[in-house]
């Protein structure tokens, strides 16, 4: 079973306590954006076989949204971090680089 540590309340929550919120770090588009930009925002997804960044909510716990860095191939969790950011923090990225040298995900690597 997938276990993620909620960065807000510090609880090691298993997946029945969490709600998955899909891909993280999506740039929101609004009025005036092109069709392509809206398609990217609404539908296009990274869907990697390997390193992935996701949004999760500690639904049956503190109720807060947070981010997780995870491997979709092995289910290894690299770490969780605050939702109040537009990019994965450096320590998480360094940790991933240690375990998966040469990884890339969207604009991050």
């Amino acid at each position, binding site marked *: *079973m*997938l276990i993620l540590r909620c960065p807000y309340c510090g609880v090691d929550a298993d*997946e*029945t306590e969490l*709600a*998955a919120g*899909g*891909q993280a770090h999506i740039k929101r588009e609004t009025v005036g954006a092109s*069709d*392509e930009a*809206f*398609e990217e925002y*609404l*539908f*296009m*997804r*990274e*869907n*990697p*076989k390997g390193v*992935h960044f*996701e949004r999760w909510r500690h639904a049956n716990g503190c109720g807060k949204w947070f981010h997780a860095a*995870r491997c*979709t*191939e*092995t*289910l290894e969790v690299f770490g969780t971090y605050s939702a109040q950011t537009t990019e994965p923090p450096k320590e998480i990225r360094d940790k991933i680089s240690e375990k998966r040298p040469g990884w890339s995900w969207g604009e991050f690597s």
Partner: protein
Amino acid sequence: MKRYSAFAIAREATRYHQGWERAWASPEPKKRYDAIIIGAGGHGLASAYYLGKNFGITNVAVIEKGWLGGGNTGRNTTIIRSNYLQDPSAAIYEKARSLYETMSQDLNYNVMFSPRGVLMLAQTHHEVRGYQRTAHANALQGVKTEFIGPQKVKEICPIMNIDGPRYPVMGGLWQARGGTARHDAVAWGYARACSDMGMDILQKTEVTGIAQEGGKVTGVQTTRGDIACDKLGIVVAGHSGHVAKMAGFRLPIESVALQALVSEPIKPCMDIVVMANTVHGYMSQSDKGEMVIGGGTDSYNNYTQRGSFHHIEETVRALIETFPIISRLKMLRQWGGIVDVTGDRSPILSKTPLDNCFINCGWGTGGFKAIPGSGWGFAELMAKGYSPLTAEFGLDRFREGRFIDESVAAGVAH
């Protein structure tokens, strides 16, 4: 190819079964093919088969990184139905269902198609209204379904408890011509027929890159060398995003795990397929007597072909109320497949930004039932550049907002 027949069995019986041929050849790859299909699952092999049968294109290779039919083709719960709400879906699934009826004769391979009937239970008032609507839509689409009341449900499936306290059965959408087929046999039958037409099925050959020149596809790089081609079809289900990345475009797809499980074999007790979408479960009985049970998908991206245990627990817990008979059954096996789910829960059969490269993916949780229809349409798209069956399933529908919204009918159970 020697035909399979009662006569052939008698002939082989007299000579210790020494005369059976291999069903398909395992050739060395050629330098060049007119068309290459990546993925030797049901959809890929069906596409190759109809390229040859309907359009005479037989210089074709089907490339598979694992073994033939070893992905979702061998992992699904084999349900065949076409009771969809939207017109484009009903058209392609109904084409598929009708091709299943004659598939064994067509391929000279017994796919054990069993039109035993599919019943989708309505267990809430919303579902009653939803399925009545679908029944009306199906009548207009020429798909034979009907909405039946709880007493008729009990008549068709006596082991069902229709008075459950939590999820009473209030009726159901009944498609008498739906059913099941032997999933492996579908892949094997197509493979045998393709090989007979002179196509090369290259197993244990992984595509590692896609060669292009001037915006046009020119071939693929594989673990067994470079192979040139005029046209390329990508039919790799859960790994579509991975292969699309090699071709240089993105897809509106996320891959998640979908699970199924089977019980120990028991005596025949249910001769139809029952789907209960409110409780995320569906069940049929295999010819061996196992109860075949499928559930919902995991909620997060995953490539592990396992799935979360709590989903199995939820599925079985909910089914036990409707089928008290299964409460003491032992479950024998559980497995997962990686399904490619799109934003509107409908497949993508489309040209791509790369010329002469086509993609057939996004079948999500319900691809098995569509195999022959998908192959039929995709072969036409690859051969002629247009197919009425696939026209609405283009990749650009997301940008243009022309969704084929089957979330209600297809988002949960298949």
